């Protein structure tokens, strides 16, 4: 084998219990665990052709490749999560050798253990809220007295000029009310969900090109929920779904996820916090 063509060690997650790899071991090359400092690091052997720094950069421009590989990453971690609490790593965390990985485990062992203790009996759930602004506008026309009044004036006037100005006035007012309502609703939804969240995060909003939806994302949030409170959390989601449906808001709740949003690493190490 020529130098530089050696394989890489791909790290998925770290646990404190011997991980069950059945069902997912066929997805990648040599899925196994490396045991060090009472921690199990779940790894596979990744090919240099795909994951060397240079090749990875090239592959990251291929959305088809990303989707397949990220799906495998997620499936493996979810499988381990069925039997143990996990610290999930970011996609494509790679080491040149198992020794190099062990050095890293050595350095971060206490942080990983602290995270595993903290996350032990909890689950990550995600709630994204979308708004169909057309429907929201319709509900505003029905409910907002001032806009309703302008609407009637537009209908009754025979002057085109007056109608034009009234429409402009209505549009300005409408935009203001829409923004006000979106803030109010988003804040209300978040406040009610956080009652069941031990920890919460608000993440950046993603545009339609990424969401592949027709409506706009207005809230992107993650909640760390106690395992015993998941049912309560989901019933709040259901209540909010029903309450906000007529106003054009849609809540998309997913989980349980590996705690991607809630692992805390020291900032000095370039951690997630």
């Amino acid at each position, binding site marked *: 084998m020529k130098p530089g063509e050696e394989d890489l060690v791909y790290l998925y997650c770290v646990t404190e219990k011997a991980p069950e790899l059945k069902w997912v071991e066929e997805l990648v090359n040599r899925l196994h665990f490396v045991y060090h400092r009472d921690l199990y690091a779940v790894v596979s052997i990744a090919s240099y052709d795909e994951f*060397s*720094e240079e090749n*990875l950069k090239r592959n*990251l*421009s291929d*959305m088809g490749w*990303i*989707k397949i590989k*990220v*799906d495998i990453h*997620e*499936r493996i971690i*979810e499988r381990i999560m*069925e039997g143990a609490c996990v*610290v*999930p*790593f*970011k*996609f*494509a*965390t*790679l*080491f040149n050798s198992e020794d*190099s990985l062990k050095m*890293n485990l050595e350095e*971060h062992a206490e942080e990983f253990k602290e*995270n595993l203790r903290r996350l032990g009996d909890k689950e990550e759930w*995600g709630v*994204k809220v979308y708004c169909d602004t057309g429907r929201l506008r319709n509900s505003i026309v029905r409910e907002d007295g001032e806009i309703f009044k302008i609407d009637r004036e537009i209908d009754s006037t025979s002057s085109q000029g007056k109608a034009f100005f009234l429409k402009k006035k209505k549009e300005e007012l409408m935009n203001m009310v829409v*923004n006000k309502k*979106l*803030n109010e609703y*988003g*804040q209300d939804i978040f406040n009610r969900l*956080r009652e069941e969240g031990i920890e*919460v*995060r*608000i993440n*950046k*909003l*993603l*545009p339609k*090109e*990424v*969401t*592949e939806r027709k409506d706009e*994302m*207005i*809230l992107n949030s993650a909640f760390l929920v106690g395992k015993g409170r998941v049912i309560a959390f989901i019933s709040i989601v259901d209540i909010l779904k029903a309450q906000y449906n007529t106003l054009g808001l849609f809540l998309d709740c*997913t989980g349980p*996820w590996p705690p*991607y*949003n809630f*692992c805390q*690493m020291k900032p000095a*190490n*370039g*951690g*997630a*916090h």
Partner: protein
Amino acid sequence: MDKIKTLKDRDIYLDLQRERKVTLLEVLDRVLDKGVVVSGDIVISVADVDLIYLGLKVLVSSVETMEHLRGVPIQGPMQEPT
């Protein structure tokens, strides 16, 4: 999970989950953007993730515009900018 006896059952189960979860959206939002970062020998940088967004012809500014449109940000703990 009790009904899963064979690899095929398992695949059907996972496919259902995948349908629900691993959309392009969740891929970008979690697996690429979040997750623990340690100084591995090769790690995807924030710049790499931004490049993926750009690859999607998504202008990051459109996200900012939306946040601006929505007005005052929702009060709560925010992730550090990524």
